[in-house]
């Protein structure tokens, strides 16, 4: 079992309100990812769950019992740190066995568990080495091994992959996912990388300035962001935003600003009935823009001037100027365009997002 419930969690560091009223229910066997920009309180939240940081107010419970006052050792959790925190004076074997020794497991049991974990992670050959004789990826595995030998109720990960190079990070990400499928232990994972969050998480918690912005499955966040911040944070390249005024003409709604004038598709128009004459923020993802053609006459279209062309092989990123706004489109690699070309682009109608200008909440 490994059910974690956060109820009204707050954390103050003197005058800094680092974590603000976080409520979250994490189910058994779930992989939950906390994601957000630097300094948003992810690590602090994780450390409060681990018991390394006192909770200013609120309750954390694991499997139904409140653990606020419990020492880290009594919470039956395991944590993997960003810098691995391997014990430098102990061999890999002893690093992995330390937690079991502290908990007074018998020697044969310790040996069996360490070797099992080493097999799972493919570090059987390294057991006699010291941490300084290992590569970054190997250290990462040892740190994981040290967490899994104990069969804890919950795994906590604090940016475990951020010290690895890009290629290794992708590889370890897949392995982490496999490991979770195999062990089925509840995992709480902190990262600032939205790709990691999207690929690893059963559910993703987006945080900003200590406040939870949205909790949801990865695609839910991608398709229905709750506010402008989530919309901009999830997805790469980031979503394009333009502030427009909503007006009515011939029974349909028009969104326009200095360089943009589009007829809003029905679904969006229905939501914006109450905003006629007001400003809203329009959002569209680069991958939802296409070069306009005859195929889709009812798509909202607009003109843009190409400023930079970025060839990525599988796609082309176009940095464009649309009136006063700068937008990015990700188009088919077969499109032939040059800098300073004028291009007509179409938006996929269902992919339009609109946000309140003031509250930035999705409308």
């Amino acid at each position, binding site marked *: 079992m490994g059910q974690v419930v956060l109820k009204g969690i707050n954390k103050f560091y003197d005058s800094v309100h680092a974590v603000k009223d976080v409520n979250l229910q994490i189910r058994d066997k779930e992989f939950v990812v906390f994601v957000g920009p630097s300094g948003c309180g992810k690590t602090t939240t994780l450390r409060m769950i681990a018991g390394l940081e006192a909770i200013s107010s609120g309750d954390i419970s694991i499997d139904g019992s409140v653990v606020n006052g419990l020492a880290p*050792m009594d919470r039956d*959790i395991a*944590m993997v740190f960003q*810098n691995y925190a391997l*014990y*430098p004076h102990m061999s890999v074997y002893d690093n992995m066995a*330390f937690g079991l020794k*502290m908990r007074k497991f018998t020697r044969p049991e310790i040996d069996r568990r360490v070797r099992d974990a080493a097999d799972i992670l493919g570090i059987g050959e390294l057991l006699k080495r010291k941490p*300084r004789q290992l590569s970054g990826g190997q250290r990462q595995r040892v740190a994981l091994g040290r967490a899994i030998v104990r069969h804890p109720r919950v795994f906590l990960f604090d940016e475990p992959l951020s010290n690895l190079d890009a290629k290794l990070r992708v590889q370890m990400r897949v392995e982490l996912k496999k490991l979770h499928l195999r062990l089925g232990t509840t995992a709480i994972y902190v990262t600032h990388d939205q790709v990691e969050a999207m690929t690893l998480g059963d559910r993703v918690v987006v945080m900003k300035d200590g406040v939870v912005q949205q909790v949801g499955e990865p695609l839910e966040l991608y398709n229905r962001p709750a506010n402008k911040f989530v919309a901009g944070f999830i997805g790469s390249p980031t979503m394009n935003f333009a502030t427009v005024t909503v007006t009515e003409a011939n029974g349909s709604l028009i969104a326009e600003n200095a360089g943009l004038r589009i007829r809003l598709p029905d679904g969006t128009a229905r939501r914006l009935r109450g905003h006629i004459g007001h400003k809203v923020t329009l959002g569209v993802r680069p991958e939802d823009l296409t070069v306009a053609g005859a195929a889709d006459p009812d798509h909202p279209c607009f003109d843009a001037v190409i400023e930079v062309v970025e060839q990525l092989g599988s796609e082309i990123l176009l940095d464009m100027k649309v009136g006063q706004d700068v937008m990015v489109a990700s188009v088919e690699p077969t499109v032939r365009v040059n800098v300073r070309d004028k291009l007509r682009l179409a938006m996929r109608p269902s992919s339009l997002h609109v946000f309140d200008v003031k509250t930035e909440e999705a409308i």
Partner: protein
Amino acid sequence: MIEGAIWRKWAFFYLPMALFLLFLLFPFYWMVITSVRPDGELYRPWNSVNYNPFWTWNPTWDHVRYLFEETLFAAWLWNTMFIALVSTAISLVCGVFAGYALSRLNFPFAGSLGTGIFITYLVPQTLLFIPLAEIIRNYRLGDTPWSLILTYPTFLIPFCTWLMMGYFKAVPKELEECARIDGASRWQAMLYIVIPVAIPGILSAGIFAFTLSWNEFIYALVFLSSPEQKTVPVGVTSELIRGDVFFWGPLMAGALLGSIPVAIAYSFFVEHYVAGLTGSVKG
């Protein structure tokens, strides 16, 4: 290293290095040579025919023999060793715990307390020995090794604490946190993780503390009076300089023999732990 022509290497590296070594090692050379030179040569006037202060053709063990047979040098050695070892041990234990507490336990005023402790180290001993002498007298510890074993920590503990604070701060706090999640109590985390990782720091603090107490002069001079209680620095200077008569041979032999244990301690530990001294904590 210095790039370019060979003469540059000589001019900017070997020559300054040689001068530096000469400057540094000459006193030791002088000490060694004086301690094996017969008295006849030592006290020969400088304008005599075969005056040669830098070398001797008739080395002798007389001074060393004199030291062990006519003076209490063996007792002084033993006293110094005993006092230095015990006071170092006391200071190291206190310093390690205090340094750990000051750098790791977040209690109010930890920072200013640390600075305060260091400031006590800066108070000159030439002032402190006056009140300390009063205390030693009241506890009737004068003229016993305990007068030094208990007073040396007054400067050794601040020194060790300060050194260990710095060292413990360099040990990543995640190591300890990880141990505590792994099931260790705060005490066990310190014992099994933090202290083993800090061993190089503890050793260097120990070496420095040992050297400081081995060479200490003022307290030893003030608190010890009978010849058989004295330490090497005090014994040698008080028993081998009578008025304005310097027994140069035994004096230098005593200085030489007195510095050998410290030299051994240094070379042994530096050899084995120099990697540790330059910090290899990040595993």
